[in-house]
């Protein structure tokens, strides 16, 4: 079966691991557990008539102590930039990461994900700040499950085009 590597990138604590867990295992855990290094999961999906194995590389969130190791995206077919709608700084970080990745690996398909849609009333991220980029954007809630399946499906579809 066709294999595609997809990387999850973003600031720490935005919910990358939770999005993967929701997508792969349909589980959400309230506890925050920092990812160290890389966490690799796989999931078979079918888009239209085509089946594909997604290799999901969940990369440790960038923080003051450690930078994202862009070489971990080698061989990736696409990536998911994750930001936390409640933290405007996490969107700025996502924008910075996108520039770094594109600078080092060239243009790759990606989507922007604003996670924690269940806390929409506490969001700091302004719609205009997102729409002005013109990036394919999804609002998700790893906790409630909303938007997660659609987001992965949409990116996979894009990768198969």
């Amino acid at each position: 079966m066709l294999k595609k590597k997809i990387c999850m990138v973003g600031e720490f604590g935005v919910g990358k691991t939770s999005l993967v867990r929701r997508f792969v295992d349909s589980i959400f855990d309230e506890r925050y557990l920092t990812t160290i290094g890389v966490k690799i999961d796989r999931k078979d999906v079918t888009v239209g008539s085509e089946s594909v194995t997604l290799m999901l590389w969940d990369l440790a969130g960038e923080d003051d102590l450690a930078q994202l190791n862009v070489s971990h995206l080698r061989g990736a077919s696409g990536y998911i930039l994750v930001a936390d709608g409640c933290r405007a700084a996490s969107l700025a970080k996502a924008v910075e990461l996108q520039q770094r990745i594109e600078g080092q690996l060239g243009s790759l398909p990606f989507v922007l994900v604003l996670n924690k849609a269940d806390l929409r009333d506490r969001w700091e991220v302004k719609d205009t700040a997102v729409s002005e980029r013109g990036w394919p954007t999804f609002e998700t809630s790893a906790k409630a499950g909303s938007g997660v399946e659609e987001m992965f499906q949409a990116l996979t579809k894009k990768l198969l085009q």
Partner: protein
Amino acid sequence: MNLLAALGYAVFERAADSSFQLAGPAPDWLPAGPIEEAFPFLEVFLPDAEEFWVNPGNRKSLYSDLWAQNELHFCAIAVAGDKKVLLIECAEPRFQQTQNFVQYAHEVSLARDQIAKLTQAKSEFLARMSHEIRTPMNALLGMVELLSETPLNDEQRQYLRVFQRAGDNLLNVINDILDFSKVEAGQIELENIEFDLAQVIEEAIEIGGVRARSKGLEVSSRIQPDVPTRLIGDPGRLRQILLNLLGNATKFTDHGKLTVLVESDKQGLLHFSVSDTGIGIPADRLATIFESFSQADVSTTRKYGGTGLGLAISKRFVELMGGRIWAESTVGAGSTIHFTARFAVAEGPAQKPTENAPVVLNARALRILLADDSEENRFLIRGYLKDSGSIIDEVENGAQAVEQFKQRAYDVVLMDAEMPVMDGYSATRQIRALGATPIVLLTAHAFKEAKARSYEAGGTEHLTKPIKKATLLEAINKFVPINDRIQVSVEEWLKPVVGGYLEKRRGDVQTLREALDCGDFDTIRTLGHQMSGTGGGYGFEPITEIGGVLEESALAGDTARIRASIEDLDRFLSAVRLE
């Protein structure tokens, strides 16, 4: 190899066909099959490992990042040597240790962000509250000031004093809360100006000792001879600390005395102490009295009042001054609050103190545009300026201010910052684009952003409500030049008749006032028409302009505009001088 295998590593060697062959026993966690397939992570590590094997430099090994798959954590290690050796480590203990450390850092960081957001929200709330309170306080305290300038009998004066004192106290409470939130938000900046320490102590004793003396307490101060008294620092904040401490000392002392002492300490700091002979502070509360909203005994809140912020604010100020604050006390015998602060010593001749003469407007009869949506505040400003002979055009929002400004020239614009339709900042920006007229912004916001915003919009000065009369007049004096004489150049052949023409117009002012009083618009229109047709011919364009407005307003029956124009005319005629 055997040793590495014994340590739990899965040991692989690169074979001639480029595949990795297990060179030892297989640990139970090792998946079956080629390792590139068993560990997808290797696809990003092996290119680095290849480079390393070719050119290891001084390194003996190259470690990969940790990765997780199937609930286990691994690390790959390329080992330098004759053979290309790759170790796979099941790195649970290392993972656990790293995760504990990073998790802690992330949780602290997230909590810090959360606290910063809450503090920001609190500061915004306090700023908003202080604005809401300061706006009516401006009107209340201003009216008291104006009322005290009117004839009053002794009883009324006594009531007014109580009113004023209560208002000042209320303002102090608001200022305390505001100061505290400013300190918390890192908004306090200390001044660095020359001051006389003896004078600051004297003023603090004078003001802070009023209540103490009325309670029958003895109040004294002593500055040790080796203490330099001409200093550079923030006298206002130093006075505030001393007043806070004296206020507390007075509150908790019923008999005996209060003493302020200033000495030099060994570290080059000044050591202040405020002692009392009051009820004292229990030993277990000595350290916590400097915490915010804290009092030595919760029951004292009811008995003695106060916000519990005074000492917390003093502590922050002292720290900003490079010192520390602490307390010593014996219950029943009294307390001493000590603090230290660092000041630079002033050099050169002493500056002369400014005298507190009543402030009056230097320039008489100004044309002022006042924009404020509060009727009470407009009334107050009118009251402050009533003796100056100035003409004040009032509008209620920024948009009206911009429109009005386009209609005529003004000497100064007084602009409230927060108004409906268009706020004062936007209006200031638009007026500034039209000319250099001084614009004084009046706001109830005491945060430094408000001040920066005023200047950024093009404001000339920023005053924080409640505004005292003297403050307003000083601000206007600072920016409005003394121009109470209008010099007009008249052609030589007209000079013999110009004096008579002006005299006639001065007579018209009285006629116009009387006509307005009895609603005789015909007379006003006729006089306006005459002025409009003649002023410019004699070299007095403003008379033509005012005449035109008078004629037009009389036709419309616009009494307010007629009244303003008569005042304009009077003002012009009083000021005009022939060259």
